[in-house]
């Protein structure tokens, strides 16, 4: 191989090595979560519709009591495999504030597919007040907003344990292996048999956590499947183009070597 080409490849390799620590770096008091294998991993990974639906159920019945998810709309649930009438039914189970109407008053109405998921608290202060001073974060982007998001959230949901000897917890604090600093205000949210599954999947904390992580990953990155599909087409096109370019380049340069 030509030395310049080799050097350029070396620079790219170095670039990859240098940018790597950024992806895995962590601050003090952090334990790296174990790497799970996910259905959405890899170049061809997709979302598992069954897991998304189960995960949505967990969110609806557990997480949504405290956590908002205001960037996701009911209409987006189509991606989970629900049809239009199912989505309408799901949405109409919620009430939202709309208005002002012609008389200038705000009013309540059942939610429509075009509405965003309603938040459990009217504003951040109310969320703080109801949760001992720490507002539960919005979950729309949670797996993108944490290092190694899906594994971290899975670790967090399954990482509650007794504090090690010598560590004391204040009222309302809970020891979590994976939370930075370990002292977490959120009580263990999941317990076995808490949510009923209709498809016979095991009703364990671990399965719940796996499912809700997949749902949250979809919520943060709803176009992942389309992105990977478009990527594959783009790469095939570019590789063929590169081959043609190389052949033409060789031909043109043939008389100069």
């Amino acid at each position, binding site marked *: 191989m*030509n*030395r*310049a*080409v080799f*050097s*350029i490849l070396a*620079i*790219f390799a*170095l*670039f990859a090595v*240098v*940018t790597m*620590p*950024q*992806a895995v*770096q962590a*601050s*003090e008091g952090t334990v790296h979560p174990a790497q799970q294998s996910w259905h959405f991993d890899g*170049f061809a990974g997709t979302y598992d519709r069954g897991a998304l639906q189960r995960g949505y159920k967990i969110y609806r019945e557990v997480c949504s009591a405290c956590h908002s998810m205001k*960037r996701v709309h009911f209409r*987006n649930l189509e991606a989970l495999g629900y049809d239009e009438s199912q989505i309408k039914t799901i949405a109409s189970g919620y009430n939202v504030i709309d208005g002002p109407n012609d008389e200038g008053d705000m009013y309540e109405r059942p939610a429509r597919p075009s509405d965003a998921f309603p938040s459990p608290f009217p504003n951040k202060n109310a969320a703080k007040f109801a949760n001992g001073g720490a507002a539960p*974060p919005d979950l*729309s*982007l949670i797996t*993108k*907003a*944490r*290092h190694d*998001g899906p594994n971290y959230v899975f670790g967090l949901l399954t990482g509650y344990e007794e504090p090690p000897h010598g560590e004391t917890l204040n009222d309302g604090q809970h020891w979590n292996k994976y939370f*930075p600093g370990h002292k977490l205000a959120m009580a263990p949210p999941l317990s076995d048999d808490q949510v009923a599954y209709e498809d016979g999947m095991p009703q364990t904390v671990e399965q719940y956590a796996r499912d809700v992580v997949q749902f949250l990953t979809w919520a*943060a990155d*709803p*176009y992942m499947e389309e*992105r*990977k599909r*478009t*990527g*594959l087409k*783009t*790469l095939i096109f*570019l*590789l063929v*183009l*590169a081959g043609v*370019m*190389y052949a*033409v*380049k060789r031909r*043109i*340069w043939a008389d*100069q*070597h």
Partner: protein
Amino acid sequence: MGSGERAEFKNPVIGWIDERLPLFTLMQKEYGVFPTPRNFNYFWNFGAIAMFMLVAMIVSGIVLAMHYTADTELAFDSVERIMRDVNSGWLIRYIHMNGASFFFVAVYIHIFRGMYYGSYKKPRELLWILGVLIFLLMMATAFIGYVLPWGQMSLWGATVITNLFSAIPWVGDSIVTLLWGGFSVDNPTLTRFFALHYLLPFVIFAVVFLHVWALHITGSNNPLGIEPKGPQDTLPFHPYYTMKDSFGLVLFVILYALFIFYAPDSLGHPDNYIPADPLVTPPHIVPEWYFLPFYAILRAITFNMNIYFLAGIAGLFTLLVEFVWREKPKMIAAPYALPILVASLFLAALGFIGDQYPTLGIPFTAAEDALVSAKLGGVLAMFGAIVLLLVLPWLDTHPIRSARFRPLFKWSFLLLFVVFVFLGYIGSQPADAAFGPVPLSLLGLLCTGYYYGFFLVILPFLSRFEKGRNLPKSIHEAVLGKGA
């Protein structure tokens, strides 16, 4: 351009236009028959690649601007709106986000190539300086652009970097107020940053035009670093280099596409997916990867510079000018060299020790007596690192351009490259991190020392004393002689 010879065109429409506005003559002269050294390697692709990236950034950026809202209450939401509800919005944003990184990849390789093959040397000094200006403008544009999504790292990165300017004596605070449009990074900051982020790319475009113009006056350098002596040493730009550039560009775009489609967030920081909150400081504020080496230089200066230290530095600098920079040292100064060296080192050490151990109570070494605070020192070191690039053509005056024929230059430059990459690693780590038993801040200082030493000491020294290998007689002979 324009009033000279015109080419003949068979097509009557083209001919008609060209008689009135010789665009086609210009294109043919500058990109058609333009004589280009025949021996480019693939490092010479990165100018064209950088040009492509600039256009890709402007096009994707304009589309994003159609959907973006520059308001602290709405900016984050509008970006998420682009990601979720704008048709193919996710694609446009990922093109732009990763495009910034890949623009820097291309430009860093382009700069590396220019330094390795001595492309900055006479007669291409101005071409090089325009390039450094483009690099500076790119840094400003990228930094400002990173603020726009108004995530946590946007807000806090902006706070840290704009605060640097407050270290400038007398006018610093006013500059910061002007940058902020108030007394903290807030809505006025965001709106002016958006305006500037839209403006600067076009300024870059204008400077790129001058850069390319200057290139077409001097012609390209080449891996041998010797000027073409006649037509046997060159090839017409088209089709030879249009084709080679296109092929290289497609390979580059393949890598770029891999990131866009399969790892679109891997080069960014997860904290920027958390909406900006002025009340919560992220535990570890880091800039984007392409700023990390300079960020490490900024943080390397952790000590105040008092009067002793600066006197010592001034003494060492005098010796440097007298015995390394000057073509013919005045021998009259020679007997004083050793005493000055000893005195300078003593003063610098005294000043440094006085600063590090204030309990010793050495007069004039207290922090408030410092002439250059650690903060200002860091800012000067960081900007100085780029200013050194501007004056590079006058620091390295060796007549041989290409590192191929200068082994000493080659190895000290490759070491600089390694040091620069390592600085990037240091910049990515928390300030109190350690590399085994050695604190990273010390390694950062050593690497910064080598960076400055390379430009201020090694290059002038090698310019005078490196003999270099024999240059080939011509490009033609060198290339076709070995049957390449």
